[in-house]
């Protein structure tokens, strides 16, 4: 599965980075950057926790071929 992000929705709250700094970062303008779009199954739980931590649902997962 892959991580998708919407920088228009992103408000720079940074909760995702606080949960999973391996896959998420913010750029200098405070918008989400997906560091590694492809997620290993073993990392799924942490990625999901990061997704749930976003107050504005700016990140989500898409299927492998999405």
């Amino acid at each position, binding site marked *: 599965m892959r991580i998708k992000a919407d920088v228009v929705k992103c*408000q*720079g*709250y*940074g*909760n995702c*980075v*606080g949960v999973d*700094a391996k896959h998420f*970062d*913010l*750029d*200098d*303008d*405070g918008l989400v950057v997906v560091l590694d779009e492809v997620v290993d199954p073993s990392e799924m739980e942490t990625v999901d*926790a990061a997704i*749930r*931590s976003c*107050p504005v649902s700016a990140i989500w997962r898409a299927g492998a071929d999405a």
Partner: protein
Amino acid sequence: MRERAVIVGSSVGGIRTAQELRRLGFEDDIVVLGAEDELPYDKPPLSKQLLLGTQTEDQISLLGAGGWDGLQLDGRPGTPATAVDIDERTVTAGGEEIEYDYLIIATGVRPRTLGGLATNESVVSVRELRDARALRQRLAGGGPMLVVGGGFIGAEVASSARALGADVTIIEALEAPFARAVGAEVGGHLASLHRDNGVKLLTGVGVDAVKQTSDGVVVRLSDGTTHEAGTVVVGIGTMPNTEWLDGSRIPVDNGVLTDASCAVQAAEGVYAIGDVARSIDKGATVYRRVEHWTNAVEQAHIVAKQIIDPTSPVPDARAPYFWSDQFGTKIQMVGRPAESDSVELRRFLTPAGEKTVAIYGLRGAFAACVAIGWPRSIATCRSAWERGASIDHVVAELETLSSGASVGLT
């Protein structure tokens, strides 16, 4: 036998608990009681996007597209709980006694009122959806706005009202707005942000009297001046909604007292989360009530996990984290500035311009930080707080994030 979880409160803490229970495999009954006769919605946009009209009520819904049914929730809006019996394990709501195996108290807080003055169409607090609706109407009608209380809610409303062209004055009893939350130095910095954006600030004065007139309100301050307004917004703090627990033997002292897993020790199967809960972190000695969105979400997860598996370990304390949006600037706070004995403002040069971060210490250790318009610094600060990093380390890590050296401003 089927079990039943009764969640009292349908704001983010309550709804997230229901969602987490389902996600983690709880297949039995979940009842969600909501005091307001509204579908569950998220509160942070009330003072911002909803007032500005950049988000609609549908967009701030907390339930997914499937609504209550999508998660097989027995949702009961407009049904406040009025009593609980911890021996019989029942909650009274809507004239019914509902049995529970797990009770999750997520009733939140309500705004303090001004000298006991009831709110009406021209004296409003912003806590519920109907408040935001009413205020939006008032703003459209024009007239100067007085914000009583220099806290974050009032400041956000002031920011939104200015964006809509209103004449706004903030009245704060302390010498600097926000001082209670972030101290006088950072409060002064934020005060400049407001002044630069056309907000009038009256500090060091209290409100003596509020008088309703035919077309608005007249407010008399402790310095003897009077001010006319179309609308008065009151943001002078909150009180936990715990009266319904009176006589229940659930321990309440400025919030429902819980352990680090949000469990109420004296009552089996009872938990409290979010703004109404006063919990004690693992290894800590004091109980704290935390009114932050992120805290409610984290505690919802902790409780759901405990219910699914009571042997799951209680996680270490996460760094308290709070944000506010004012005049297009993010103000983000990590840790507990109110529990510090030093503060230094530092300026960092980043590719996106100069950024100011206040770094707070307590007995020489890193206690908190407030970043003004630099979201990227927040994860670093949270992680440093959780590791117990020194102030020097925090500054060094922030310098690594920016373009190098930083300058102390105080």
